[in-house]
């Protein structure tokens, strides 16, 4: 009982980390930069979904599509204004700029959407079903699947399609890629849009189980980055597996040792794992040619 419910909780939590970490992964592989406001992108997905679907009462599929489109626009804006100006100059300023962008977004939502958390109603999270003797919402069973499918898709696209190969080429030899007719600006901007759409998907999936508020993404963003590093940020499968593992460790620690130990054990595990596997679970060491 205890172990089953902990595993279910852990997989749900882990899939959230995995989806956000995939967002870190995709921008990293095409541009060696990441959007540190992934937690805010996740929040944006949930807040837009709530605004279109609940406040304005539009049909939910349309609301979800529009919310994800909004996230994509946010991703494009992050790339254009918070990453590109710095990366072009070879500066690491994008690090701070994306963090700052997330804080600006969180606070803008705080003042427009309000401070009070809201409930995101969903038919998939209203009545618990019996799964081996424990109560679970159908949505909880769907979430880990979404994480795994997203990782499989990304991994397939990057390795086996023309567009995917173009994306990988951009980071390996940007100049050569440009000479081969690959629009590198377009590829990088696209990666940022995909990244925020993945985060928005996580936000929309989690909202009915959790609640919608301007600060909902903060802790998720931090933990997802930790799992991206843990999994090896260059590997799509690595970050998703690390996300799921981290979620499971958290839930199992809570269940068997008590919630006072969850953060201590979770983050200690990350330090230890990186000590023994400096490139993460499935990451490859960078080869520097001199």
């Amino acid at each position: 009982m205890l172990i089953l419910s902990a595993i279910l909780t852990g997989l749900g939590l882990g899939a959230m980390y995995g989806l956000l970490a995939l967002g870190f992964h995709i921008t990293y592989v095409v541009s060696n930069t990441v959007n540190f406001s992934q937690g805010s992108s996740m929040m944006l997905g949930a807040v837009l979904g709530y605004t279109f679907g609940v406040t304005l009462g539009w049909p939910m599929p349309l609301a979800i599509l529009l919310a994800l489109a909004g996230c994509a626009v946010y991703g494009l804006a992050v790339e254009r204004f918070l990453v590109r100006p710095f990366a072009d100059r070879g500066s690491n300023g994008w690090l701070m700029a994306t963090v700052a962008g997330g804080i600006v977004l969180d606070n803008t939502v705080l003042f427009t959407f309000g401070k009070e958390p809201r409930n995101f109603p969903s038919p998939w999270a209203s009545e618990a079903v019996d799964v081996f003797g424990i109560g679970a919402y159908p949505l909880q069973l769907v979430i880990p699947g979404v994480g795994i499918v997203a990782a499989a898709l990304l991994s397939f696209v990057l390795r086996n399609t023309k567009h995917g190969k173009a994306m990988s080429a951009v980071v390996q030899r940007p100049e050569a890629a440009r000479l081969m007719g690959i629009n590198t600006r377009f590829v990088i901007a696209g990666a940022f849009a995909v990244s925020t759409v993945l985060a928005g998907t996580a936000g929309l999936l989690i909202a009915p189980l959790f609640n919608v508020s301007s600060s909902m993404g903060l802790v998720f963003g931090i933990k997802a980055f930790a799992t991206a590093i843990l999994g090896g940020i260059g590997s799509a499968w690595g970050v998703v597996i690390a996300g799921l593992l981290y979620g499971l460790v958290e839930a199992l620690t809570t269940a068997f040792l008590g919630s006072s130990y969850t953060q201590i054990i979770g983050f200690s595990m990350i330090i230890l794992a990186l000590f023994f596997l400096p490139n993460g679970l499935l990451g490859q060491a960078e080869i520097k040619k001199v």
Partner: protein
Amino acid sequence: MQRLKNLKMTRRSMLLASAVTATSLAFSLPTAAADTIKIGLIASLSGPSAKSGEAITRGMTIAIDEINAAGGLLGKQVELIRRDDENNPGKGLVAARELVQKEEVAVLFGGLQTPVSLALVPYMNQIKVPFMGPWAAGTPITKNGAKENYMFRVSAYDSMVGVALVNRAISSHGAKNPGMMLINNPWGESNEKALSAAMADKGLTLAGIEKIEGSDIDVVPQLTRLKEAGADTIFMVANVGPSAQVMKSLERMNWDVPVVSHWGPAGGRFSELGGPRAKDVEMIQTFTFSGNDSPAAAEMMTKLKAKFPEIKGEADVTPAVGIANAYDGMHLAALAITNAGSTDGPAIRQGFYDIKEYKGLIKTYVNPFSPEEHDALGPDDLVFTQFIDGKIVPIK
């Protein structure tokens, strides 16, 4: 030379002008200061906790209007001066210095945030100006161990809430082995101590203490641990969001355990967030308008609607505790000033001790303060409430 002369003239006239200004200021300032009796308020007037500052302002404003309509204090009108602490202890302290030293407020009121009020304790005790806390519940704000204590309070405080929650669990649910679900922050810690002490007093055993993180999607693992340890009641201390996660998780587990809670769920849309089990939470309040038959409550509601047109009904005055605590606190401070016969800090402090009886909104206060007791409310003054259709209603 001519130019120099001009300059001299100018300098002389400037000197003269400043002398005149200084003299007029010297005469005008004390008169201005003596015109009114100033009461200060340092609370969250912007940002996420702004609603709490608004509630305190409303309660104090109604009380001050009543006092002024009855002729004011010591023959003068009472004036409220507010400053925003932005939830920041440093800013709160700067604002306190300004209000006390520049504006010379007779009594300073505080806001919702315990850390801000705690930061003011050494300053208020040193400058000897009384402080009235209408909200922040941290026990050491008033119980601060100072020889000459200037910190007073009309609100619930954690150690008293601990006693009230434990008494409720025993009397209504026959609790023998309760468990705790606490938010993982200093507020949760403070209540862990208070609840543990109150449970030890009553000889209860502890099923377990579990922490909630703000980012916990569900708290089934924590609750399952408490269930397996045989918990027969749950004490809950967390704000709206995490409290809602506890109720949703209980619903999923289909575990019908009584939940006795601190006032965290009170602000916001708990009914909507907590799902079908939200109504089962038994939560403490110092005051509610809903289900309150007292004439004082009805009169207060009428006055609030008249003074603040945006208030249409009970739904617009949540959380009511801020309004009620601030209203009673202001009237008690007025009595203390009247007793003191001056706005001298130590005299007002003695004035608080000399209050014999005051018929307030929350209760009739009889000898509410003494050098040993700076809290006007006790465990018996708390009301247990539940959420019915989004309203906080006393449990019959």
